[in-house]
């Protein structure tokens, strides 16, 4: 698997969430993702970028364009150095929220993409990687 292109953008304000959605939509289009796959990816980006801002105090969004044989994909990594998630199993339960959200951010985002990976520990920040293939 090759990385064809990559970049990083900060998520520190609410406006950055909107800009991240627009940037990821463009990348997904360039990758040849179909409209539904694009929409799912952009929605997942919106959920995870907001989570990172609200719970992680902001962080970085790193994107990679992948090529694996004939298929192309886009991987997006959200990394923050916030408090981390103490009980990951609980956080990955539909409807559970530590804030005032709907509790759909993490679990919903996971359902919207082909691959989802999360690394977190209390005091260690959170790193979430999602991948959508064409």
């Amino acid at each position, binding site marked *: 698997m090759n990385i064809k292109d990559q970049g990083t953008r900060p998520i520190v304000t609410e406006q950055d969430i909107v800009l991240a959605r627009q940037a990821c939509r463009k990348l997904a289009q360039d990758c040849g993702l179909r409209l539904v796959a694009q929409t799912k990816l952009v929605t997942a980006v919106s959920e995870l970028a907001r989570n990172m801002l609200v719970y992680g105090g902001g962080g970085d969004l790193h994107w990679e364009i992948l090529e694996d044989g004939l298929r192309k994909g886009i991987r997006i990594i959200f990394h923050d150095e916030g408090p981390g998630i103490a009980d990951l199993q609980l956080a990955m339960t539909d409807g559970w929220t530590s804030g005032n959200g709907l509790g*759909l951010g993490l679990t919903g985002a996971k359902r919207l993409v082909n691959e989802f990976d999360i690394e977190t520990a209390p005091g260690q920040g959170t790193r979430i990687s999602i991948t959508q293939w064409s």
Partner: protein
Amino acid sequence: MERIPILRMGEILLVTVQVEMHDQLALTLQEDLAERISATAARGVLIDISALEIVDSFIGRMIANISSLSRIMDAQTVLVGMQPAVAITLVELGLNLPGVATALNVDRGMKLLLDSAQRQ
């Protein structure tokens, strides 16, 4: 401050979301609508989201809130024009917008609101 315009057509308030929805804009819309329903004694609110390319859980919650709040203020909300890809994504996300009336397009949504206003 940036605002989503609210148009009045008789007893119905019409909201057409034409811009990329960010969180503060959604919150402002909620407050503006509550004030306009109160000021105009509107019986219905029609929200057209045909230009929206994504609806995430935050925007979804704002839509559900507007619907509950207008019900409490004696007005009915109808959400119209959701793009197919957005609908598929919302269901997968787990957001089924309970209690929010929907219609395929503005015409049908308007008919729904006028019919129910007539019955009252």
